[in-house]
């Protein structure tokens, strides 16, 4: 049994107080108060009846409409401290088998002549100190995961259509259809996929689709202590991820392959592939 993350209800949409309410007169206030008190009397008198008569509210999953969302992910590499919380949270949330990774963190130690890259156990236990044989001039961490590409080769090569992209922009695998041929694993340029050694089907990051469709954040975003990882909805104009993609200088991994990743990076170094 793996530990599930604490479910945190999403904050309501930021609807500010209306201008009319701000400028309400005393007369309007009294009228409103009267209406409210009479409503309260009715409510107190017939609460049980009202309860029975009101239509049952649908659970969050059923209310979800994927036409209303288009997800994207933003990673600010300057903020990552390599604590590995995201990798641990992902493992706990999704039951990722040992030795395989839906997300991982890479450490870059870079000098003018050389660069050292490592990711011991995907960074799940953080990073031990290292010494390099060259003069290091900068060092940073880069979280990695499935890029949920728009033009993704993994979906293209799946011989049975088990890999697919949802309308809200998440690349998923149907474990009931997957034949375990590993063609998608070979085709992913980012090393994001693997065959689960237990059920022998392809597995990868789903951006915690089971959470995001309930209005929650992916586990890795939820636990990131520095705000390195941000999950956003491109269909919301005020979304911070959308704002960053629109206005900041963002980069993607292996852009030359034209896979149109939906995982964007801020301050990406040339050494990162």
């Amino acid at each position, binding site marked *: 049994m793996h530990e599930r993350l604490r479910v945190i209800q999403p904050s309501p949409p930021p609807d500010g107080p209306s201008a009319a309410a701000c400028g309400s007169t005393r007369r309007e206030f009294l009228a409103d108060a009267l209406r409210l008190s009479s409503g309260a009397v009715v409510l107190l008198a017939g609460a049980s009846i009202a309860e029975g008569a009101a239509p049952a509210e649908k659970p969050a999953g059923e209310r979800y409409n994927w036409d209303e969302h288009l997800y994207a992910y933003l990673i600010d590499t300057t903020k990552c401290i390599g604590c590995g919380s995201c990798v641990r949270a992902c493992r706990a949330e999704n039951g990722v088998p040992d030795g395989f990774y839906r997300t*991982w963190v890479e450490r870059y130690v870079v000098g003018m002549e050389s660069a050292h890259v490592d990711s011991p156990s995907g960074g799940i236990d953080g990073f031990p100190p290292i010494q390099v044989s060259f003069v290091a001039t900068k060092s940073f961490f880069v979280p990695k995961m499935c890029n949920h590409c728009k033009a993704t080769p993994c979906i293209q090569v799946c011989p049975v259509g088990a890999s697919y992209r949802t309308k809200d922009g998440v690349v998923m695998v149907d474990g009931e259809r997957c034949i375990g041929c590993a063609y998608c694993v070979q085709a*992913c340029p980012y*090393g994001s996929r693997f065959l689960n050694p237990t059920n022998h089907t392809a597995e990868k990051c789903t951006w915690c689709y089971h959470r995001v469709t309930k209005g929650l954040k992916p586990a890795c975003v939820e636990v990131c202590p520095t705000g390195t990882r941000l999950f956003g909805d491109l269909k919301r104009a005020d979304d911070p991820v959308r704002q960053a993609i629109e206005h900041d200088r963002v980069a993607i991994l292996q852009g030359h392959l034209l896979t149109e990743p939906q995982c964007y990076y801020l301050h990406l170094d040339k050494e990162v592939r």
Partner: protein
Amino acid sequence: MPEISGFAFPNDVHVWWSLMIVLYPYLTGFVAGSFIVTSLYHLFGRQEFKPVARLAMATSLAFLAIAGLPLTLHLGHPWRNWFVVVTPHFTSAMAGFGILYSGYLVILLLEVWFVWRQEIIARARRSRGFMRGIYKLLALYTYDTSPEARDIDHRAITVLAAIGLPGACMLHGYVGFIFGAIKANPWWSTPLMPVIFLMSAAVSGIALLIVLYQAVSKFQRRPADQPCVSALARWLWFFLILTITLELLEIIVMAYEKSESWVIISELITTRLEFSYVTMQMIVGGLIPLILLAIVVMMNRYLHERVRNTLSTAAALLCLLQVFAMRWNIVIGGQLLSKSLRGLRSPYESEVFGHEGILMAIALFIAPFVILWVFDRLLGFSEPEEEGGGQAEHGAAPERAASTTMQL
């Protein structure tokens, strides 16, 4: 856990495509290569291939019967293999397998039937009891051996060979495409890949036929037809030159371009694949048979029969090694290389037992030869000249050759 030199993406340390995926293109290579040889006789009227034309066709069928098995055995869910045929996802190169495989199988079965029809009927008439029933069934209860029926047979064979040749080429070219179209892997991603696979298929097919023909001749205690051996050696030499040239060109272009991936690929070739690539694929399986075959081809008329047989068979055996090494280096080599282009994993060692192990691979490689043996017992490889069928073919082949030349 495998050892990693440099940095590999954490999920990139596994070899997902195992020995079975090495074996799959190896077996389909024999299918395509053998069919090319049989087409040289049936379609292009090359009379020198007549002694091996039937053997080549039976070889193609025997290997095709087994070719799908390694793919299935490799799957995480082998019982879902029919999904690929029933609900193919057409943007996938792999989805083409069902169509190409079954299409080619139908064409090949039909062609085998037309080629062996006279023989089946003759055996049905000769045999008694249970075997008679078998031959009767194989003849589809049609005993028509009239000149008109034979003429129809010959025309059908030509038409089927004309469809079958591109079919065989596409079946194997598509195997190369499966690798060549993976842009994530620089060791695979080259448009040359399907062509290299096709050329090496021809090499493996012809090489196998040289070995098989010598074995069958020994088994039947008949001397191997020397013009046929010479022709096979000549065509093997031709296709080996093309294969080695293309394989070298692929590397030379990468090295000359100093492409992003060349640093890691050069390390892959010179460290992890040093034995299988440099030694086996290029020297033992490439350079040496090139020299041996050059001797057979260029000094043909000075060679004693036994020397020719020995040299060409030795070269053919080395070519079989070369092609296996090439499949290994492509399939396994491509997975030793991380897509980070910063690291290599330690060499892959296949399991011995298990459904993807070495013993299974050996069994799958032997299985087509067992099928061939059964085929020989049932229908035979020799041209039925003594029954008059051969004479008809003798007459028909040059006519077909003439018509093909005219069409060309």
